[in-house]
């Protein structure tokens, strides 16, 4: 009866190629001592087990203290998989490192921003590493993916609850209790008092902001820079504020 059924099966499409921008957690590798790396990773994961559960990650080589280090990618992949992180590629690094990664099965990913597209031509990559469809490199506006990844929470966030907006903003229309934890790759907006912890830009975005209507936080953090409640200027306590990073330091501005 339907048009679908009347068609021969061969002409029914089984797949389509589409571009898309997907948020990924970047694991910035700073050093190459893998046993130490594994210990530190274990501690990090214990702090927020759900956050890391089978999350895809990109290994970012741009922050290596010794940029020319040779990395044992096979071992690195093994450690990550064992810790339930799924490495999907590398970012940056020297051609030799990229080649070694490709041998271990990790493609080199291009960054989605326009600047890097200009500076890093696709031709620099070994062809095998090009797993991203061209449409993705051409790129949609990042805004699209950000807005679709935003999370809106309407109920109070209780002590012991952890909410993560992967790849987007977290918007909360209720109070955030002591002992609750908010995480977002983008901004965090709280239309209520912030009494727990809020960590914006957790994948390293230094442009993320935290907004709240009453600052009573246990901890605030943007891109890893953090302040605990003791360090917050008492004059700003219980005020509506906008928190951002200014020259690498947390800046709290009353609204």
């Amino acid at each position, binding site marked *: 009866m339907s048009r679908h059924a009347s068609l021969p099966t061969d002409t029914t499409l089984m797949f389509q190629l589409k571009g898309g921008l997907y948020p990924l957690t970047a694991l910035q590798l700073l050093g190459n001592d893998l046993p130490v790396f594994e210990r530190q990773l274990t501690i990090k994961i214990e702090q927020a087990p759900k956050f890391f559960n089978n999350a895809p990650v990109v290994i970012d080589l741009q922050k290596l203290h010794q940029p020319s280090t040779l990395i044992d990618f096979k071992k690195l992949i093994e450690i990550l998989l064992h810790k339930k992180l799924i490495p999907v590629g590398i970012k940056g690094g020297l051609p030799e490192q990229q080649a070694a990664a490709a041998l271990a099965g990790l493609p080199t990913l291009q960054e989605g921003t326009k600047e890097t597209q200009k500076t890093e031509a696709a031709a620099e990559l070994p062809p095998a590493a090009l797993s991203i469809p061209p449409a993705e490199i051409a790129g949609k506006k990042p805004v699209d993916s950000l807005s679709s990844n935003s999370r809106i929470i309407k*109920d*109070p966030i*209780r*002590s*012991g609850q952890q909410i993560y907006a992967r790849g987007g903003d977290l918007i909360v229309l*209720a*109070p955030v*209790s*002591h002992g609750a934890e908010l995480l977002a790759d983008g901004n965090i907006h709280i239309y209520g008092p912030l*009494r727990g912890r809020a960590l914006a830009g957790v994948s390293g975005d230094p442009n993320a902001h935290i907004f709240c209507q009453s600052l009573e936080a246990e901890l605030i953090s943007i891109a890893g820079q953090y302040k605990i409640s003791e360090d917050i200027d008492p004059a700003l306590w219980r005020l509506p504020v906008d928190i951002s990073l200014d020259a690498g330091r947390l800046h709290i501005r009353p609204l």
Partner: protein
Amino acid sequence: MVKPNSKVIVVTSGKGGVGKTTTSAALGAELANRGYKTVVVDFDIGLRNLDLIMGCERRVIFDFVNVIQKDANLAQALIRDKRSENLYILPASQTRDKDALTREGVEEILTELRKEFDFIVCDSPAGIERGALMALYFADEAVVVTNPEVSSVRDSDRIIGVLNSRTRHAEQGHEIKKHLLLTRYSPSRVQRGEMLSVEDVQEILAIPLLGIIPESPAVLNASNQGVPVTFGAVSDAKRAYQDAVARLLGEVVEDTSQKGWKSMLLGGLRLFSRSAV
């Protein structure tokens, strides 16, 4: 047949010592006073207290765990209160621990109880472990007992989060009704800034207020004598529990507990005239 209006109410708090058992007994007794067939179930396996608070400790033969393990049937384990024919208790075991509770076992017992009783009040143990999770899993409504101090409020907040995610209703996508019951409230200590006010607690917990039970010697006396507060002599605490039950049943009751200190401030005359009557 399960009674169509039968309700399972969990009395919980996260923190220990805030008055869960006292409240379970008082609410159960008042529901029975009003003619509802009510059973209070002690989920605190290993730390049995409800029977003491309700004054039937010498009549415990079989308990919750015996019924789960089919060593006894439900009728054998239920104890009828001597003061009200509508009130029963299902005591906990003192010799076992919380691992004896299985979800299937608890479900089976609650389903049986729903056939007989209008209200099943589950007295939860403290904590957020197995015993507490079992007590709240099948609940239709929850009474969150909170003292006006920060650690109790934070634990209540935690348990509200658990109620929002780990009940059967929550798993099916429905929220259960949660009521805040403030206990051991002392308006004069709030005045002196030694205690959180009702407003402070409500602002943090953001659930409807069922009642405010004043700090009262009547509560301690009741516990020591094994008489639920609402079966005892007239007292401010008894009145407050009666109001709480009225609200639980959907009645609109004026808040008198807060008036205490306001009337004291605004005019001693009213207090005098009241005591003269």
